[in-house]
């Protein structure tokens, strides 16, 4: 029996990190249509940190959530419309109610990997409304497989219908993925998914390992468009899965066409494994920090790599962008002491 893999495509969500959340209306329309044509099952859209996250802390979005949702909804027919939300940024009243009205199909409710209990009410609300809710554990490299399972079980008990673990810093090696995914597959009654980042060049092989360990949902973005070094590159993923005999339902030629469209549409910012994103992977710090770290390094005349390693030491989590400036200031002060 061939393995069926559900591909969820956050190009229009994670990709927003790569352009400081400035994706245009035209980009949303063009890519929704391309993904629809290729038969991508779930198209995830929004601010890089999800609905309700547009902010000075993590970056302001050029489009409102409402605009993004109505644009995307209008251009998706067979592909499901997905969103990402992080309680603490979003609230039920401000964001989820609107998203349900806007016709979102799949709600991916995320928390830092050890904080699943903040998703209880949000997952519950979505299920009450009869919508599909997935639980997402971010920065999953920061805890052990056993704790990941415990947190996943919390989300399962709230009503999550799948659990996706994110390698937000692109820090995993293939065997790390195998260990975690198989722990979750053994311990949960719901499907398990993997969301890779490419900081250390491991995104594709990590996704293949995830499937071999029992994962049935894999995230990938076109051209790898996403935070930091980028995500698992979707068109490569589809090709590799086809060769391995995993069924994705995505048309290879059409997704390659989508990659061409994306190349033009998202130019010139297609992410690549930059020196800084390698450091972010090694330090185990959220890939999305690379842009603000670069800026802080310039402002305070310090080495951005030092900032990353220091953030890693302090266990910075996504959403703690404010810590970047503090670290940069402290490093600058330290440097001036050394200089004098």
């Amino acid at each position: 029996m061939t393995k069926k893999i559900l591909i969820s495509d956050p190009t229009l969500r994670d990709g927003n990190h790569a352009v400081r959340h400035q994706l245009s209306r035209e980009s949303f329309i063009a890519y929704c249509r391309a993904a629809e044509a290729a038969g991508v099952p779930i198209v995830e859209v929004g601010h890089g940190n999800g609905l309700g996250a547009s902010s000075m802390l993590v970056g302001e979005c050029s489009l409102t959530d409402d605009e993004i949702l109505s644009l995307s909804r209008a251009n998706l027919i067979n592909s499901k419309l997905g969103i990402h939300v992080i309680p603490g940024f979003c609230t039920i009243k401000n964001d989820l109610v609107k998203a349900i009205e806007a016709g979102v199909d799949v709600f991916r409710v995320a928390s830092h990997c050890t904080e699943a209990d903040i998703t209880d009410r949000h997952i519950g609300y979505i299920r009450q409304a009869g919508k599909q809710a997935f639980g997402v554990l971010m920065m999953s490299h920061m805890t052990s497989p056993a704790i990941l399972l415990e947190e996943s079980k919390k989300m399962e008990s709230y009503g999550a219908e799948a659990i996706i673990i994110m390698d937000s810093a692109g820090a995993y090696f293939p065997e790390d993925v195998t260990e975690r995914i198989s722990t979750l597959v053994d311990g949960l009654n719901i499907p398990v998914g993997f969301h890779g980042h490419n900081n250390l060049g491991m995104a594709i092989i990590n996704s293949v390992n995830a499937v071999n360990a029992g994962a049935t949902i894999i995230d990938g973005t076109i051209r790898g468009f996403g935070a930091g070094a980028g995500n698992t590159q979707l068109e490569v993923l589809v090709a590799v899965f086809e060769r391995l005999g995993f069924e994705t339902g995505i048309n290879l030629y059409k997704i390659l066409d989508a990659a061409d469209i994306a190349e033009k549409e998202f130019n010139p910012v297609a992410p690549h494994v930059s020196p800084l994103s390698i450091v972010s992977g090694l330090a185990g710090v959220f890939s999305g920090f690379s842009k603000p770290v670069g800026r802080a390094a310039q402002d305070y005349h310090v080495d951005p790599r030092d900032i990353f390693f220091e953030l890693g030491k302090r266990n910075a989590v996504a959403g703690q962008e404010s810590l970047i400036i503090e670290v940069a200031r402290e490093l600058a002060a330290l440097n001036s002491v050394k200089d004098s």
Partner: protein
Amino acid sequence: MTLRGKLKVAIIGSGNIGTDLLIKIMRSEHMICTLFAGRNFNSAGMKRANLLGVTISDRGIEAIVNDPAICDLVFDCTSAHAHIEHWAILEKLGKYVIDMTPAKLGVFCIPAINAAECLNGGIRNINMITCGGQSSIPIANAIAQVHNNIEYIEVASSIASRSAGPATRHNLDEYIETTQDALQNFSNARRTKAILILNPANPPIDMQTTIYAKIANPDLPAIHSAVMAMVEKLKAYVPGYKLIVPPTIEGDKVITTIKVLGAGDYLPQYAGNLDIINCAAIAMAELIATSNLTSEA
């Protein structure tokens, strides 16, 4: 009205907030805790209160209904949902209420900003907003004293995961909505946003809050002195309040970061988020206690 010249206060809710308040009240010259009421005699807070020789009850609000003379002021440390019922009862009994929940029934209170107003005009229900609100709103208010037409204010707090109990986690939405409303109220900004991040780092981080203000042509020196003056006011009742990044211009925004170190009374020092809202509540209760003493003298 008072017992040996002291204001009689009751605490309902025997969790972390209630118990820490109790320890702070024990030090007060102007207040005495005459009732510590929860639901469960086996809770750690109840046991501590019992050891301290305070009258305890597991009947919650009923303990006050059954003996209305037991107190003049009530700290409600239960939940927003429960507070609605509690206030209906306590209002009839004519009690002062300091509401520690995000129920938003009373007047929003930041002692450094509007203590006096909260004491005047017969206000009986004082709402202490949220921990993030107590730490960030004073800064927003100081900036608003310089620029009265701020376009947008945002506050992002990160707190130690360990300092966020089940109730905090369950009420994240209420936290955000209440903080945003109060922020709007005290800054007059056109738009406001509040964000809360739980940080699981071990050892736990101190509570840290960053205030972002979008202002056309900011007057940085004036903002700086207004913020410094506000920080001094806060330090008077929150000893662990500290400015980490003074107002700094970054692009089109002014950024300020503060940190709150807890007093370590009942809770660990990293729980600055719980400490600051309690310090603020105690500051208000002390004012009520002393103004009563004055009026009697």
